[in-house]
C-alpha cells in the first residue's frame, strides 16, 4: 500500500522547490496568460473581419485554450518534477530510498493537480473578465473534461520520464514537446472531421479528442456530453495501465543498462 507520509513528504519537497523558485512560479502563469490573450485577440480580429460570422468561434477557442492547458500542466507536473530530481542530482537519493514507484508517481500527479488548479483559476478569471467567457457554463461536464485531460497528462508525463531515463539528457526537451506532438490529434481548436481520414483514426484512439468534441457540443447546444466523457475515461484507464506497465519495464531496463545512475550523475 502506498504510504500517505511518503507521498506527502515528496509533495512537500516539490512545493518547496517551487515556492523558492520565483522564475518557476512566474512561468506557471505567464505562458497560459499570454496564450489566452493572443488567441483571444486573434479570434476577436477574425470575428470582426468575418462580419460576425464566427458566432461561437471565440468561445470554442478560449474553451480549447483553457482546457488544453490542464493537459499540458498535468503532464508538466509529472515530467518537470522528475527533471527537478535529475537537475538537483537527487534522483539516486530518492530511488535508493524505500520509496515505492507508486508513491513517487502519486506525488508528481499531485503536483500536476496543484499546477492545473492554480493556472485554471487564473485563466478562468481572465477569460471571464476579458471575453465574458464563463468556464462554469460547462457545469458538471467541466469536472469530466478536467479529470480526463489531467489523467491523459499523467500518461504523457510518465512517457516523458521513461524517454528521459532511456535516452538521457538529450531527451529533456521532450518534456515540453510531447504534449504538442499529440496536439494536432487532440482536435483542440477544430472538429475531428477537419482532419484527414488517417488522422481521425488516431484522434479517436486518444482521450483528448473526445473531451474537445464534447466541449464544443456543450457550448453549441448546451447539452451534457456524457457519452464523450465516458469514452475518454475508458480510454484513459487503458492508457494509464499501459503507461504504468511501460514505466515498470523502463525501470527494469535502465537498471540493467546502468542508465538510472548515469542520468543522475552526468
Amino acid at each position, binding site marked *: 500500500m502506498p*504510504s500517505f*507520509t*511518503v507521498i*506527502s*513528504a*515528496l509533495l*512537500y*519537497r516539490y512545493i*518547496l*522547490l517551487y515556492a*523558492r*523558485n520565483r522564475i518557476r512560479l512566474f512561468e506557471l502563469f505567464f505562458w497560459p496568460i499570454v496564450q489566452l490573450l493572443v488567441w483571444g485577440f486573434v479570434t476577436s480580429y477574425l470575428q470582426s473581419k468575418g462580419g460576425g460570422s464566427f458566432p461561437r468561434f471565440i468561445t470554442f477557442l478560449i474553451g480549447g485554450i483553457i482546457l488544453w492547458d490542464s493537459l499540458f500542466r498535468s503532464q508538466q507536473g509529472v515530467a518537470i518534477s522528475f527533471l*527537478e530530481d535529475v537537475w*538537483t*542530482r*537527487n*534522483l*539516486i*537519493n*530518492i*530511488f*535508493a*530510498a*524505500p*520509496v*515505492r514507484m507508486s508513491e513517487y508517481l502519486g506525488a508528481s500527479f499531485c503536483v500536476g493537480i496543484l499546477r492545473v488548479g492554480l493556472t485554471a483559476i487564473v485563466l478562468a478569471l481572465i477569460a471571464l473578465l476579458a471575453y465574458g467567457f464563463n468556464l462554469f457554463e460547462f457545469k458538471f461536464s467541466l469536472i469530466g473534461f478536467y479529470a480526463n485531460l489531467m489523467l491523459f497528462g499523467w500518461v504523457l508525463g510518465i512517457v516523458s520520464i521513461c524517454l528521459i531515463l532511456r535516452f538521457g539528457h538529450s531527451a529533456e526537451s521532450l518534456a515540453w514537446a510531447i504534449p504538442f506532438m499529440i496536439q494536432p490529434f487532440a482536435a483542440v481548436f477544430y472538429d475531428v472531421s477537419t482532419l484527414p481520414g488517417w488522422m481521425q483514426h488516431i484522434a479517436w484512439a486518444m482521450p483528448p479528442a473526445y473531451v474537445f468534441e464534447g466541449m464544443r457540443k456543450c457550448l453549441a447546444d448546451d447539452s451534457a456530453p456524457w457519452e464523450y466523457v465516458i469514452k475518454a475515461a475508458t480510454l484513459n484507464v487503458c492508457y494509464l495501465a499501459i503507461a504504468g506497465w511501460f514505466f515498470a519495464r523502463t525501470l*527494469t531496463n535502465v*537498471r*540493467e*543498462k*546502468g542508465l*538510472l*545512475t548515469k542520468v*543522475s*550523475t552526468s
Partner: protein
Amino acid sequence: MSILSIKHIAKSFGTFRAVDDISIEVAAGETVGLLGVNGAGKTTLMNMILGLITPTSGSINVFGKDIAKHRLEILRRTNFCTTYAALPGNVPVFSNLLIFAKLYQIDQPKKKVYELLELLEITSLKDKLTGTLSAGESTRVNLAKALLNDPELLLLDEPTASLDPDIADKVRKLIIHLQKTRKPAVLYTSHNMRDIEEVCDRVLFIHQGKIHAAGTTAEIKERFSEENLDDVFIKIARSDKQPI
C-alpha cells in the same frame, strides 16, 4: 551472521565487464574498505547493493534476503552517502533532512533530525539553503541523511572526498563512534589511505572488477612487502603493466 552477503556478482555494460565475480561478506559491526583505482568498479558494486543497477549474474543478500525480491524492505534498514548525489540546493538543510526522515518513515522525524544535526555539529546550518553550503558542510548534511534511519547496513562512497583534514578526521571519528554504539555493517570506499587504515577492519583491493587482495591493512602491507597502504595501492594499480 553476515548482514551483507554478495556471491559471485558480475556486471557487464555491453561487452565491458565493470564487476567481475566478486564475493563479499560483511558482518554486523564490521567495516570493510573497498580500495581501487578510478573505474575499478567500486561505485558499480555499491549501486548494485542499493538496487540501482541490476547485476548481470550472482546474488546479493542483505539481512538474509535477496535484494531483487525484497528491495523496499532492505532499503528501509539501509542507507548511504555518496559523492554522486546531492540534496536539492534551494531547500533549507532542516527541511531536506525532515523530508528524508519521512521518506524513511521514522518515528518522531523532527527529534531525529535535531539529534543528527547535533551529532554532526551542523545545527547552525539548519536554516541555510543546502546549495549554499561548502563541500565539507554538505558532506556532513549528506551523512546526517545517511544516519536518519539508524541503518544496519551503511554504504559510504568516498564520504571524505573534498573534506579538509580537520573535518575528515571528525568524520572518521564519527564513523568509529557509530561502529561502537550502533554496530552497523559498513562498506566504505575512499582514495584516502588514512581513512581506510583508521576506519576499516578489513580491506578489499578491487582491480578491473575483481578482488585483487583482501585482508586487514597489516596483512596486506605484509603480503606486498610495503610500509604503507599508498604504496600497495600504487603497486596494484600498475600491476597490469608490471606483474607483482
